[in-house]
């Protein structure tokens, strides 16, 4: 109804609708700059420091990303020639987290993320488009387009709002000295997220990380190295040409990945700190997979020892790849009822 030009062209493709693939898998979480699991981490880079025993804290983060999922797809408006699409034009995320220190060296944390996606409707399509009767025919038909093509008929369109996969984590600090710290974060995501709307993974993912930190007074240098172990997801061309119909091309996939992160933070004043953070992934399995890298500059405001606000801005470093948002802004809040000496930075 809303995209008449597209639908008229779609009628030409009606005859090919049965050629579409059922592989328009949408089980990808494309929020690649994920907030840290507790108040001791920076915006997106976790720190080895753990909360002290029975320290309870909360985090809240709001993020905005421009074009966090860009893919090359066939454009039905251009006779199914390949064209770049920002499948998700904008994404807003909200992450609410809680953590509790069990011992001085071990903590539990949970984070519930939700998201709002603004899609490119030309890429997404519509579950039911009316094709009016042609010529002397008394009856026309309806047909699905875009991501809905070739799938069981639905009345429900892709959701603009959805829950993403909740994150559960255990953090352990192996060593925490005056100048150096080392720890690990073992994170699990639960596949409750909306897999049909680019909000959730296909299954449970396991994301272990090794966390390192060099503490040079007001200057902290942090690093993390880890992996994402997941069931792969594959998105095939939803609108293949006649020649591609027998074997639609794979447009995007995810598999196991290595993860990295690095950060530099400096506390300029009791109330203010600055930081540079960067995170990324390197794929190790699957076809049509690609690395990601994001960089953020952060301003931390610490009105009290218990409270930290942060504002970060940046974007993807590999902008031609999927999942590298062109621009990103994040607002964070971290609160601890019983913080360690020195506060939350």
């Amino acid at each position, binding site marked *: *109804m809303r995209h008449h030009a597209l639908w008229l062209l779609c009628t030409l493709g009606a005859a090919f609708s049965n050629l579409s693939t059922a592989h328009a898998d949408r089980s990808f979480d494309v929020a690649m700059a994920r907030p840290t699991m507790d108040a001791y981490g920076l915006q997106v880079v976790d720190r080895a420091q753990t909360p002290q*025993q*029975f*320290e*309870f804290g*909360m985090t809240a983060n709001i993020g905005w990303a421009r074009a966090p999922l860009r893919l090359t797809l066939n454009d039905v408006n251009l006779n199914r020639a390949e064209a770049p699409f920002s499948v998700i034009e904008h994404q807003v995320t*909200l992450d*609410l987290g*809680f953590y*509790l220190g*069990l011992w001085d060296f071990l903590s*539990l*944390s*949970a984070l*519930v993320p*939700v998201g*709002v996606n603004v899609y490119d409707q030309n890429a997404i399509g519509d579950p*039911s488009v*009316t*094709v*009016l*009767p042609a010529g002397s025919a*008394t*009856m*026309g*038909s*309806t047909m699905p387009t875009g991501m809905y093509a070739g799938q*069981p*008929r*639905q*009345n*429900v369109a*892709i*959701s*603009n*709002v*959805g*829950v993403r996969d*909740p994150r*559960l984590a255990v953090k352990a600090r192996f060593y925490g000295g005056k100048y150096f710290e080392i720890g690990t974060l073992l994170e699990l995501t*639960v596949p*409750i*997220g*909306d*897999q*049909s*709307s680019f*909000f*959730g993974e296909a299954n449970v993912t396991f994301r272990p990380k090794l966390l390192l930190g060099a503490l040079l007074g007001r200057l902290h240098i942090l690093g993390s190295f880890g992996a994402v172990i997941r069931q792969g997801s594959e998105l095939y061309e939803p609108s293949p040409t006649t020649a591609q119909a027998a074997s639609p091309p794979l447009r995007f996939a995810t598999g196991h990945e290595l993860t990295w992160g690095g950060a530099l933070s400096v506390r300029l004043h009791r109330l203010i700190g600055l930081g540079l953070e960067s995170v990324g992934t390197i794929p190790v399995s699957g076809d049509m997979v690609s690395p990601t890298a994001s960089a953020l500059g952060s301003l931390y405001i610490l009105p009290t020892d218990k409270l930290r606000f942060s504002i970060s801005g940046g974007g993807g470093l590999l902008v031609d790849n999927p999942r590298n948002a062109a621009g990103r802004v994040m607002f964070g809040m971290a609160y601890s*009822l*019983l913080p360690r000496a020195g506060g939350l930075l």
Partner: protein
Amino acid sequence: MKKSLLLGLFCLGLPSWVLAQEVPLPARRGTSALDPTYDVLLPDPEPVEATASKSEGDKSSPATDIDIADRVLSAAKQVTTVQEAPSIVTVIRSDEIQARGYRNISQVLENIPGWLSSSNGGSLLAMPMVRGTAQAALLLRDGVSLFEPVTNVGTYNRSLPLETIKSIEVVTGPGGVLWGANSFLGIVNLISKDADDINGLEVSAGYGDGPGSPQDFRAYALFGKSFRFKKGPKLSIVQHVSYETYLGSRYNVLSTLSRNSAPSPVGPHIYSTFADTNPERSFIVNIDGKISYGPVTLSYSMPFALMNTSLSFANSPTSGRWDTATNAPAGEPVRNHLQSFDRFVTLQYKGRFLKDRLGLDVKSYAIEFIRDLDAVLLPGSARNPSGTTFNTEIRSYRLGLTIDGDATLPLRNRLLWGGDLFYDWVPEPTVRFPLSDPKDLPISCPLQQSGLTTPVFQPQCPVPFLFATNRLVTALYVSDTFRPVSSLTLDAGVRLQGGFGKAEYNGGNIGGNGVLLGSASLVWNFYRDMHLKANYASGFRPPVFNNTDSNGAAVQFSGSHQLSNETSQAFQGEWNAKLLRNIGPIRALQLRVDYAYTDLRGLIVISNGSYTNRRTDVSSVARGSEVNSHRTIHSVESAARMYVGDHTLSANYTFLHITTNDRGLLRSMPQHSFNLGWVLSVIPGWLDTNGTLQVVGSYDDPNRYRSLSLADGSTIANASDLTFDKLPPQAILNLGVRARFFRNRLWTSLNFYNVLNQRYYSPDPFYDLAPTLEVTPTPAPGWSAFFQVGGKPF
């Protein structure tokens, strides 16, 4: 939620030096609420000021308010705690209702593990579900059943003024022995505030807007005062008046052009275009109160309302009359409602005798149930400009008497006993079609005059909606609580209930119209503040008058007097604990995990155009499953609540797995759902923020899809165009802020509901695989906001 579970499991294994840091609990063994010396029938034993003072920063004994919040006053017909009650009980108190910004009872219920909100008939009626089953809970006000006997439509809507409620006690699972019929899978007991709870005048006014609840104004005044005379008992007066006016939620949905409505056989469903809803403005006036003089209390509620909603049956929009000149809806507001409110008067006597060893609670009541229906069948369209509507006034009545007693017996026994005697009846309501020519209607309309060659029908086609009927119910119950040792409580009870009259009970296990129910439970305080519960509970739901006496020749499915009672039984286990008492900033962590196996039999379904206990369609017969409908439910319900400093955080998780003997796995219910809730004190006693994140997993909804189109753009969903719509997970986020001034004498709040504006859909409780009534997903409201100012001038 997972975190909470992990916490719970982990804390079980904490070393003894950690547990040794816990402070002793105020309520120790021997002074338990289950102790036989406890006063059962007295009102709330805790002064309200105790709770209030805690919220203002008095931390001299910080555990007290937590323990008060756990107290169960009447859901178990005895004073106990949620940890020790013989059933699965959740208590929501008035301070939590206010702090969390709840505006109606459905919002309260959906934050309880095992409960979900839903709606049916478009948005005509709110339909909360317990363990994935609709119309399965018994709604009580101060212990008086408000079960509506014609349609079993409860008043889970705005007509219940939450500011008058002291606490809501919710039992998850059957409660038939204590509460009788219709406590099928749950009990929702609303306990109203006493004069001492209010002690002055409270006033408030607010306004809200947003597509979820447009142009909403609400104001109330609540007065409560006790007067003590030199001689004679105390006189207490509570009076409440509220007024609300609002528009129904805004939707843009497919407009129905033509369909085969009940009880017609399944046929094509034809749609025109998408249309905006435009319901007529609604209002609700509540006048209620109670007067107590010594042991006698007179309570009354006299609401008046016009409660229009936006969507009607088959999700038809209230788009109104079609203007053929502009070829668009004329824009006139449309009346579309299923009124759901109750008027009642109750007279209660409460007393204790024999040095408090014997208690007596007698209630007599008269109730009028208003369920007037005035709804859109087909919105106006180019082919049917006026549209098709129908209306009927469904008024039913109840007169009754309930007696509850308790007696303290030797050998650490306490006996609860009592009975019910009430009479329900409904006069014959007539359905009319004000906008339709009777000769165009697909039903047999009465003739104006017989003997004419061309039939002349009576205007508006008045036909009976259902036939007048009645039922007399009598019941007796007895339940004993035995504490052989202080850490162990055993509980067992039986109830005998009979239904007589035109709509008498059928299929009962005592003489056909008599029902014998039993229950048993064990509660073991096995370690410090940890309890284990094992519980067997049963219940039943007799067919409502609309099942037994509906007029199948009009717009209804055929009723039948052969219908049997639906029965429920559940085997339930619970582990609950209070951990981390006063450790660091943590005041307490409460955990609860329940598992229940629930078995429902003889569920009334629609088959071949009539109500029946067994599905007799072709597929059922072919599979040899032509037996009474049978549903089994495996459920895990867990809850965690943490009090940290002045903050409160809660999390709930529910797992649900339902199978039916005739439909297999019930795919239209989410298997996973969880809630996070918080009240964070920004400035203690002055400013707090609150929030709720409700996450409901994905589920399927059997519907039809539109497969054909016509030249005018209308589309057709044939009876064979079936699909399972994959309904996405829901993330409903509510946020609010509240400020209080002058020691709580003045407050203001601003709450946002469904902040992310998720356009989600309601679960389909009836799981109709050949959809007739609901053929598209039922949309839920978008975002809304409400600003409120209140005060207590004296």
